[in-house]
């Protein structure tokens, strides 16, 4: 018979050949070195393709739920802290954007609301290949133990309005907390811009770009306000520093002209070792703990680039 084309070879490799086809094709392969060698190539290709696809699984999404304003963030239930909750955090924030409430809700209530929203409605199998962020020290979102794989996945919002409202408020608290200075999502920017305006009006602090000759003075002022040294972004040029209530906000220009904003403030409860990463369409922000401070780096970059930059903050 004539040689085997790639369609036949893959059909064979996928175990989809009929008995007749398999017999005929295998007979040919036994007699034809060219096709046999071709089969080996296609088999290797098939494995490479599968390996590539295996790399494409989404990150676990864990939402840290505040237990009280300013206190350490802690998930209400033990499993929520360590298991990836397969609910898009985005939908938690969905209701928060327009007219996000200024006041944070009762932390415990919000935490409970979210916990109850995640209470199992129907058991769902966790993703077969959950990706866990695996840091060197082993504290991580681990791959769930088999017993723990059945996890409620409320991909749809909870049915009761009260729960939803509390979740929105809690989510607004989550959303409002990092407040990247350069205004990622518009409603968040509205909040922070309004807050900044109030703070500036009250304290008379100038948040304009500092000319080079005043840069050092601004840096000193910021350091004083913080009570500690200002973190810097290595390899970038300082384009301005402003002091807000208890926070130093510095703008850094990268070699290619992109400007990122670094906000440094006293820690607000993010656990050491955790990074809160946020990504909108063309901007990302990363927030992490650095000793007594929390740093937020934000800019018009993809999350990966931003994280790489974050490593250069000292």
């Amino acid at each position, binding site marked *: 018979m004539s040689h085997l084309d790639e369609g036949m070879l893959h059909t064979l490799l996928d175990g989809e050949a009929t008995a007749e086809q398999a017999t005929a094709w295998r007979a040919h392969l036994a007699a034809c070195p060219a096709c046999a060698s071709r089969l080996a190539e296609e088999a290797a290709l098939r494995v490479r393709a599968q390996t590539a696809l295996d*790399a494409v699984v989404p990150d676990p999404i864990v939402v840290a739920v505040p237990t009280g304003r300013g206190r350490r963030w802690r998930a209400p239930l033990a499993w929520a802290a360590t298991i990836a909750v397969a609910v898009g955090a985005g939908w938690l924030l969905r209701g928060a954007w327009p007219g996000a409430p200024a006041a944070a809700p009762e932390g415990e209530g919000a935490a409970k609301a979210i916990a109850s929203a995640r209470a199992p409605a129907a058991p769902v199998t966790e993703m077969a290949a959950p990706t866990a962020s695996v840091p060197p020290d082993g504290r991580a979102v681990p791959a769930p133990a088999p017993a723990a794989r059945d996890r409620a996945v409320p991909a749809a919002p909870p049915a009761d309005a009260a729960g939803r409202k509390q979740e929105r408020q809690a989510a607004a608290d989550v959303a409002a907390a990092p407040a990247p200075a350069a205004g990622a999502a518009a409603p968040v920017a509205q909040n922070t811009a309004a807050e900044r305006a109030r703070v500036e009006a009250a304290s008379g602090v100038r948040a304009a770009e500092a000319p080079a000759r005043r840069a050092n003075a601004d840096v000193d002022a910021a350091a004083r306000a913080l009570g500690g040294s200002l973190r810097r972004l290595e390899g970038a040029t300082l384009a301005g520093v402003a002091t807000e209530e208890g926070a130093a906000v510095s703008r850094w220009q990268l070699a290619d002209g992109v400007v990122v904003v670094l906000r440094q403030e006293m820690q607000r409860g993010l656990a050491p070792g955790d990074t809160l990463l946020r990504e909108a369409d063309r901007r990302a922000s990363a927030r992490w703990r650095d000793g007594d401070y929390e740093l937020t780096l934000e800019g018009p970059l993809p999350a*990966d680039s931003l994280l790489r930059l974050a490593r250069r903050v000292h």
Partner: protein
Amino acid sequence: MTDPLADLFTTYHASLVRMLYRRTGDRERAEELAQETFARAVASPPTSPRAWLFAVALNLLRDEGRRTVRQERRLVLLKGELPASAPPPDAELERRECRDRVLRALDQLTPRDREALLLQAEGLSYAEIAEATGLAPGAVGTTLARARRRLVDADRALHETGAADVAS
């Protein structure tokens, strides 16, 4: 939920989400589309579920068209990473880069090739793939062969481009 539907959900939900994620690169959207798919299964429970579910999911994707990109797409808490005092593990960054690269490579496939490939990766048989995508059953093998080659080639090309960028 009736019992049969709960079973359907438990059996296929993760697989459906994964396939949708590979198609969209957007976890939240993948979850939403999966939910919508199952909602339709509630309305008219399928007799041969797997091909049906994936067909519905693919149709939903196609019908979606160009959606306005949601402002806030993703909020992720990466446990245990310390960018300042300890850099994120190279392995983690590399993993994400690798994933993003393959997603971009997948974008270079034709829709038909991509669908067949992703369905096969979820364990659908050729017959099921044919049913879900409208391909002739005899054409599935050829489609997969081509899709696999194009994926691997595209991924390699992107990898080489990326390496060149870093080196320059």
